[in-house]
């Protein structure tokens, strides 16, 4: 699984950091998404899918 995060779209709501904290963090400056792992480990994949689903701005995609 590969994750793409669009920091232009991101509104810093923090839903990804809340849902999959091992994979996502937020910038201290403007709260936008930081990818801790571009390719999450298999045990984090379910959480990443949930994070993509709950992202309010559609800033996350997986392939």
């Amino acid at each position, binding site marked *: 699984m590969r994750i793409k995060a669009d920091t232009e779209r991101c509104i810093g709501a923090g839903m990804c*950091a809340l849902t999959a904290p091992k994979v996502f963090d937020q910038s201290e400056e403007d709260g936008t998404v930081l990818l801790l792992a571009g390719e999450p480990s298999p045990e984090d994949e379910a959480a990443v899918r*949930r994070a993509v689903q709950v992202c309010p*701005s559609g800033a996350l995609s997986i392939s």
Partner: protein
Amino acid sequence: MTNALPQPVTLPLSRENRVDPPQDLRRWREEGPLRPMLYADGHVGWLVTGYSAVRSVLADSRFSTRLELLHPPISQRLQQAKKRPGFFLREDPPEHTRFRKLLTGQFTVRRMKQLEPRIQKITEDRLDAMERGGPPADLVRDFALPIPSLVICELLGVPYADHDRFQRDSSTLLNLDTTPEQAQEAIEGLATYLYGLVVRKRSEPDDALISGLVSTGELDDTEITGVAMLLLIAGHETTANMLALGTYTLLQNPEQLAALREDPSLTESTVEELLRYLTIVHLGPVRTALEDVEVEGYMVKAGESVTLSLQAANRDPERFEDPDTLDIRRQAMGHLSFGHGIHQCLGQQLARIEMRIGYPALLRRFPGLRLAIPAEDVAMRSNMAIYGVHRLPVAW
């Protein structure tokens, strides 16, 4: 749509069954995700009740949130309200972005987590005071309202000693029976107070958020006043009502309450489920189409307003199984109680932490917590923009 549309409805406010959405909303959602709605100014727009339709409109930039474009769903007051600089909830990008990006860094998951020890202390102090003064106690006055108020005051750098003043004004603004004149007076009162505070921060800066905004140099004092007003109102009325109404709801569902007492690891899912189940922002939000947009087979024309019923969406069986049952074990994340799209609640991670600390601390302190009056005598906030209970007398 080739099918004839039903006659326009008006937005129902009263929850017949206290915590469940008005029954009309449920019936209408079963008939279709959108239907024509009559607005308070005579405009015929739309009411959206289906989860996927609500979510898609909130994420769609072809719908605007600008105050001057919105028709009032229930009272003329919304339309008559003056536009205020810094009230960025009512702005579209790029104006909205200019404000929001200055603030998001202050409300990250991590920043909010750092507040945990302080919120725990505030919570325990309130519980101490409750224990000394009762039983009985009014859970709203003694617990649910002061905790988020103290927290947001500290975060913004607003003296809590002034809370009587801003709580009165914000309560006037949220009361749906308020006349336009009273609303204007409350808004001016709040604005004058906060403007004075912003000016003071220029000469006496502190570490809190308002000072931080002053020091960026990116906003003028009137804009900072608007931002402060928005955060102050949103920061305490919402969580306060969740804490009180959530406690009421748990007390009315003793087997769920017992499960939570038994297993505190259910706290996080309980908070999400209460957010979904209760959906205290029960009047909107409202958007207006900037161009013709097709939403799930319905044509919303440019200039038409849509009212998005979060409470109907959060009880949509297409999205949540057995939606009318409170189930603290369910995966309720994905509910729309904080909204969706670019205007999704800025303070949601703070609200979550306040609730994740508040409910279990209250239950730990008072193992015999119960209502001190019959449940049917608890007065519900049907006349307020944020739902909840006016008072919640409890004993232990």
